[in-house]
């Protein structure tokens, strides 16, 4: 007869993991987090309490519970005993699953931030059966496994942890709370509807269906495509906020690039000297301007040189200039202006570059106007933004004021460049952009309402679009990107 069903093997082997969530070193308090099925075992072992009221901070004495038997070299667990030595007195909070962050039972211990207390607690926890120290990113992985977060939300957490500035933090929070996901779900919903209209027109040909279904589907696809196209066009903006706005200072040697950098960075980051060609390597400083992360790179001056090292430096300058979101091209206030062919070429290729005229502190207004009008003619660009910079060494207040003015000009540029990133869903990663580009191309192939492609071909393109969207939130696809994402997390989240 039929063999009995073997269903009694309900031996869950999910381990309970723990990690110190605060940075190493001495501090007032530290946080140790635990997640897994046996967190209450740890609670009982340390405090004698079976459980705690959910989500309430309780001040408890934590006692030692493990002792090493020297003769057998084995760890013997001793049951809770009120006579055992106290490790620390700490706030303990119990978060029962599945309404916890990881979806499992969680416990938070807030001991004093003494390295010895933390080490003792970790050592003790590690002795419990089925307990171990968490791997990097493992808490969040469990949250993901238990369906608490999708991929975009996890990326948001990664970005939040890494956020240095307000804008980065706001963007990361938006993504963590599902801003991108909501947008993608909306697109996906629309495209599924379009696909359904097409499929119905294919599979139910002998039924009485409204004849305009394919046209409606194509219209939905076109509408969604235009939204996605717009998001793609603005996609660089999210990345700018996330990774920082790259500004490169370029110009001939000794026009004052390093001086400006030091003023802007308010510290001596680059070596300044009157000897032309002093800066041989590209030097970057990270700055926070009005909440934007800005990376300002000073580059070696560009000139004809036979010096091998200087030539390498200049090659780096050109690279930095090519990769920058904004170029500050510096020229000296000379009458007539001296612009090398290379500087002119850079200006021609970068109509948005700001031309910073340095050493203006020695000029009269009329001289300045004269130089500017000559520069306008030389650079053949009426819309060019000029900035006359004076950094008088003996008047630090005036220099600081002028720097602030320049910063205001640059921040305006950044705001314009990231305007879309401020309102709602935004593409913050290369991975998102690549997937959306496939979606966009597939939808462009669907075409407008006047397209005469076969319905089965339209359906094929729509399917491709939906599958690609799913790759962003991780609904269907899985691959190496998982390990990439989880690799981004440090221990204990």
């Amino acid at each position, binding site marked *: 007869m*039929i063999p009995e069903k073997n269903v009694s093997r309900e031996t869950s082997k999910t381990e309970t993991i723990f990690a110190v969530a605060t940075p190493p070193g001495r501090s007032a308090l530290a946080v140790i987090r635990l997640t897994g099925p046996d967190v209450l075992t740890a609670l009982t072992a340390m405090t004698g309490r079976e459980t705690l009221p959910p989500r309430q901070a309780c001040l408890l004495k934590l006692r030692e519970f493990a002792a090493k038997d020297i003769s057998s070299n084995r760890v013997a667990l001793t049951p809770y005993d009120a006579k055992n030595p106290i490790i620390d007195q700490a706030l303990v909070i119990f978060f029962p699953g599945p309404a916890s962050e990881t979806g499992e039972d969680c416990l938070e211990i807030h001991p004093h931030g003494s390295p010895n207390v933390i080490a003792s607690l970790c050592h003790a926890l590690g002795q419990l059966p089925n307990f171990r120290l968490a791997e990097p990113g493992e808490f969040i992985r469990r949250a993901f496994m238990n369906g608490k977060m999708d991929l975009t939300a996890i990326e948001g957490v990664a970005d939040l942890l890494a956020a240095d500035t307000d804008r980065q933090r706001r963007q990361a929070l938006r993504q963590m709370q599902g801003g991108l996901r909501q947008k993608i779900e909306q697109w996906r919903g629309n495209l599924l509807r379009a696909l359904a209209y097409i499929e119905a027109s294919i599979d139910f040909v002998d039924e009485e269906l409204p004849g305009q279904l394919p046209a409606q589907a194509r219209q939905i696809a076109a509408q969604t495509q235009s939204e996605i196209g717009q998001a793609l066009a603005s996609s660089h903006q999210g990345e700018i906020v996330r990774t920082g706005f790259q500004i490169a200072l370029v110009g001939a040697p000794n026009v004052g690039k390093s001086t400006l950098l030091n003023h802007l960075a308010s510290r001596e980051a680059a070596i300044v000297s009157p000897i032309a060609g002093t800066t041989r390597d590209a030097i970057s400083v990270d700055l926070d301007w009005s909440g934007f992360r800005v990376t300002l790179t000073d580059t070696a001056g560009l000139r004809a040189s036979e010096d091998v090292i200087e030539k390498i430096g200049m090659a780096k300058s050109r690279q930095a200039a090519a990769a920058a979101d904004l170029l500050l091209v510096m020229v000296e206030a000379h009458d007539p202006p001296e612009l090398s062919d290379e500087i002119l070429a850079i200006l021609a290729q970068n109509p948005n570059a700001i031309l910073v005229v340095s050493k203006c502190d020695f000029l009269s207004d009329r001289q300045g106007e004269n130089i500017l009008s000559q520069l306008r003619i030389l650079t053949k660009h009426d819309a060019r933004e000029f900035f006359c910079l004076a950094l008088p060494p003996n008047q630090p207040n005036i220099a600081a004021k002028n720097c602030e003015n320049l910063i205001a000009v640059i921040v305006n540029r950044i705001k314009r460049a990231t305007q879309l990133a401020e309102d709602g869903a935004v593409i913050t990663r290369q991975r998102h952009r690549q997937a959306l580009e496939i979606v966009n191309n597939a939808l462009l192939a669907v075409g407008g309402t006047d397209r005469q492609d*076969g319905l089965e071909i339209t359906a094929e393109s729509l399917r491709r679009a939906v599958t690609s969207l799913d790759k962003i939130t991780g609904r269907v696809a*899985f691959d190496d990107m998982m390990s990439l994402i989880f690799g981004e997390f440090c221990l204990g989240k």
Partner: protein
Amino acid sequence: MGNIDTDSLKISHHTERNLVVVGGGHAGCEAAAAAARMGARVILLTHNPATIGEMSCNPAIGGLGKGHLVREIDALDGVMARAIDRAGIQFKMLNRSKGPAVQGPRAQADRRLYRQAMQEILMEYDNLTLMAGAAADLVLDRDGHLAGIVTETGQTIPCRAAIITTGTFLGGLIHIGTDKIPAGRVGEAPSMALAQRLRALGLPMGRLKTGTPPRLDGKTIDWSGLGKQIGDIPPQPFSFMTDVITTPQIACGITATTDKTHQVIQANLHHAPLFSGQIEGIGPRYCPSIEDKIVRFADKSSHQIFLEPEGLDDDTVYPNGISTSLPKFVQDLVVASIPGLEQARIIRHGYAIEYDYLDPRALHNGLGLKAIPGLFLAGQINGTTGYEEAAGQGLVAGINAAISLGFDEGGAAEAKKWFSPDRTQSYLGVMIDDLITKGADEPYRMFTSRAEYRLRLRADNADLRLTPMGVTAGCVGTARQQKFAARAAEMAAAKTQSEQWRISPSELARMGFEVRQDGIMRTAFDVLRLPNIGLDGVSKIWPEMARYSEQTRQGLAAESLYATFLARQDEDIADFHQDESLALPPDLDFAAIGSLSTEIREKLTRIRPANLGAAARIPGMTPAAVTALLRYVESGRVRDRAAVPARAPDRAPTRAPDRAPDHSPAQKWGT
């Protein structure tokens, strides 16, 4: 087909080689024939041998997705296509105006001719024996393997493999109004004992529902004012083996429901077992009864009805579109409210039928029950609806039941590999994979939209896709093998030739075809897909095209039309096969995989997907769970390798070492 063998003399010997098919419907016929082609000694057990090949519901074969299935059955030398080619009285290629991938053949059948054709075809198999009777019980041996089938008269047929194809007979219950009649079809007894036995075995069972319209006397229909629908001229056969259709062709009538129809139904909904709670089973959404349509689409004032004659010399008419289980007196009023049917006489009233089915997630991809080796299931018992779906499963189950007895040419039994074309190869694969991974919440019907690789799974290339597989498995007879070899060779030659013929844009312009004058030479294969050139244009440019058959030319045109999409799909298919090749051990302990939610763990334990791809397709599976499975299986492989003594015992631990802190983004960026 042998004589009816009541004394079971022959049967009692060599029991190891016996294969029993229970049921003579579309699944049963195909299963018996397939197993016989594989070389098994087949006993077809059925209530009444005269009803073998009966069309219980609508007198038609094929349709969208369904027609594709019939072509695939034919490609594996099945019987359905040949039967309908003999019995078809109106052939129509659906979606003729759309692309070749979504065109599906359909044909109205003469019900009597179809039965006759099916019985004649089965008669050609010498190793197929017919037996009248009903299955009541199963015999299992000590290992839980199937050992025999017990009939209702108490006779035991020893066998090591059986295929159950009971259709609506398993626990069948007919509803007409408030009347409930235990039956498999009107006037035929249901299989109650077998249903009880399967439930007692602890198999996961459920109830489904389907329905059928009243049948009308065509002599009493006023055809004069009705619309007419005729078939294709000339009719295109289903089977790759049929050259021409010789059966006379007829037209169908078209009428529609009226306001009065809707009023009658609205006024009598309280009599409808569908809404009173009397019917527990779930019916197909896409094949609703007329009362269901009127309730759910209240704003629609009229529903189309096709009046399909059931035969050339049969006056019975099947009114397609008014399936119902309303009481008989309401059905009389409904029919009388329809134009042309005012005076029509109802020969037999419509009804709903509830029946038992088994959750198909209990099956492996060879359509055998995972819990009972040797027992295979096909058709409505697996939660499907439709003749074609049933026949397709019958075919696959028949081949695999034979394989389980050792009748296979490819050594599949030793490799423990069932004959099961996959989703990238066939609609059969799509259907079986859907059933065994997703189950059937409602009766499962095939649509072309279920096939994600639809552009390559066409009716025109079913033989090119599947016949070679069938030849390897051993289910394709020599006649078809020969015909197919010639056809495949011609197709290959035409493809090669079409890629060699080249033409310049200027020459095309000279011949009157507008193309971009980019100076690029184009092949015949490439210009074939240009809408303003097509097959006609290519035949004009290269008159030698005429040397190829119409079938080859059409096939070539389809390949050309979809070429870019097919090439792109190749990548997806490579991914698909990678996931399919990651086998999950049949005894995998899902409880041992950390971080799976209880719900997913239970699902996986119940369904036991054969590989990672199948697991990913289970509804409700999260990508995270799939990743966890992947990690587990891969770490398992690491452990297996570590177990090989030749390897160093101190392998690297499976858990990755803690990362250096500077890998975290916060550290990378510095603060």
